[in-house]
């Protein structure tokens, strides 16, 4: 259970990344979504005790992130955005080193490292230097660390950024195997849809939306998205693309050339809320 109360983060250069975030997170997998610069990474770094907030409070399982940081650190794993393994070390060496650092004995760390790497289908690569692995496999090395650490709370900051579709699916499969509460940030809406029980949308350092995917999309019930390059008076404009939402029964009118009709997804929450605020 994570609870935040009016978390504010102001960096030294004056940038305010978080404007008083108040949240309760208690679902098994929570996805924090938002545009680049929305404050997702700052929030994750504060919650995982890597960064001090300017003001406000936060607790993880009843422990204060400022006063009880060392106790919290025993029960969390945080995989930073774009973390990459050390090229000369193997996946097995990474996971073992991390687990020994967390206080496990050598034999326990070796056993857990082997189990997690095998579970994530890295068996045949676990003794190869990490710089020979694909991007997806490198990310899975970090998921293996999280999997083998046996902790209550896992933070994953944009775990699939820059990966090809197949690698992303591999990492998704690995994330599904994690136990405990998982808080992941992403700007891939399909990722949030696939993996999360609850979605928190952040924009400009504030919480815009919170709820499960079904409830968040209920406002679009009976609608479809129409995309076109034909200028529209009503609707949202993204570059040269015009977007509007129409009733399913009216969609037939847009079956002509120059129009695309799309099913409603979390992208639409992102587009409608994000674009409305941007404009």
């Amino acid at each position: 259970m994570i609870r935040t109360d009016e978390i504010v983060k102001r960096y030294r250069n004056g940038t305010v990344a978080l404007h008083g975030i108040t949240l309760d997170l208690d679902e098994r997998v929570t996805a924090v979504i938002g545009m680049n610069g929305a404050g997702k990474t700052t929030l994750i770094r504060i919650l995982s005790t890597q960064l001090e907030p300017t003001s406000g409070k936060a607790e993880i399982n009843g422990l204060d992130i400022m006063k009880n940081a060392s106790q919290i650190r025993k029960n969390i794993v945080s995989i930073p955005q774009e973390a990459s393994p050390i090229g000369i070390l193997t996946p097995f060496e990474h996971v073992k080193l991390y687990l020994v650092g967390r206080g496990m004995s050598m034999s326990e760390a070796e056993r857990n490292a082997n189990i997690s790497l095998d579970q994530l289908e890295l068996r045949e690569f676990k003794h190869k230097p990490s710089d020979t692995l694909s991007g997806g496999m490198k990310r899975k090395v970090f998921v293996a660390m999280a999997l083998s650490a046996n902790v209550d709370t896992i933070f994953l900051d944009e775990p699939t950024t820059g990966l090809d579709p197949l690698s992303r699916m591999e990492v998704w499969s690995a994330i599904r195997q994690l136990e405990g509460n998982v808080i992941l940030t992403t700007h891939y809406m399909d990722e949030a849809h696939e993996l999360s029980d609850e979605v928190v949308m952040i924009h400009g350092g504030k919480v815009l939306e919170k709820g499960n995917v079904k409830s968040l999309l209920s406002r679009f019930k009976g609608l479809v998205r129409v995309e076109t390059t034909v200028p529209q008076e009503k609707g949202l404009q993204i570059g040269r693309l015009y977007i509007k939402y129409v009733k399913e029964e009216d969609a037939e009118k847009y079956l002509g050339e120059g129009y695309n009709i799309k099913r409603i997804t979390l992208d639409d929450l992102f587009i409608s809320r994000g674009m409305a605020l941007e404009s």
Partner: protein
Amino acid sequence: MNLRFVGLLAWYYGFRTIIRGPSYIIASLSAPLTLLFIIYIISAGTLVKYAIIGGFIGLVASVALSSSGDAAFFRLQLRIQDLFVASSITPVDYILGLTMSYLVFSFPGIILYVALGTYYHLFTLISALALALILITLVMSTSAISFIIASSIGHIRNVWGIAGILSVVMTVLPPTFYPYTYLPQVAIYALAISPATPAAILAQGVFHLAPFHMGMAYFMVAQTVFYYALARYLTRWRQR
């Protein structure tokens, strides 16, 4: 302190680099061996013993100082330090682990210099033990400096440049490869900012190449404690 982690990091990052990236060993040896060659030629062999003893110090100090590049790379590019911060790994464990890994990484070079020292009949049991103590202290103080530098580097593009400058200025300028008696007192004070200076002065005394200076032993220990304390004070494990 988690000594298992310190030992494992030292072994993995020190030893695995030797096995899987041998070019780094040659790179770390190239500067002291080149200086050894030049000093041998210019002094017609008379200063070769200084260059061998200086080689130990230059090698260990330059490897440890170059490590600021690695530490900054881990923090800024690989984000390994962030991973460690959000766990029960402490900054002392991390700094010590990296420090020890550079000591392991220096072993092939040390062996080469031991061979050269043996050939020139430099060693006695006492002097060898004293040199080992000097080198261990040196690697600790230079690693602390490295960690301070690594923590203050804001962008990855500056990492290797700063590490390179630091390595040359702090190991070649001090009386590492020449008798410290050549220097005026004021220059020794100025160069004492580099741990290689007291290390070289002590080592030259231990091997009877120059007058022994016991005060430098106390200075070196105090300097190591100071740089470690400074590293703990200036570098923030959890960022603000």
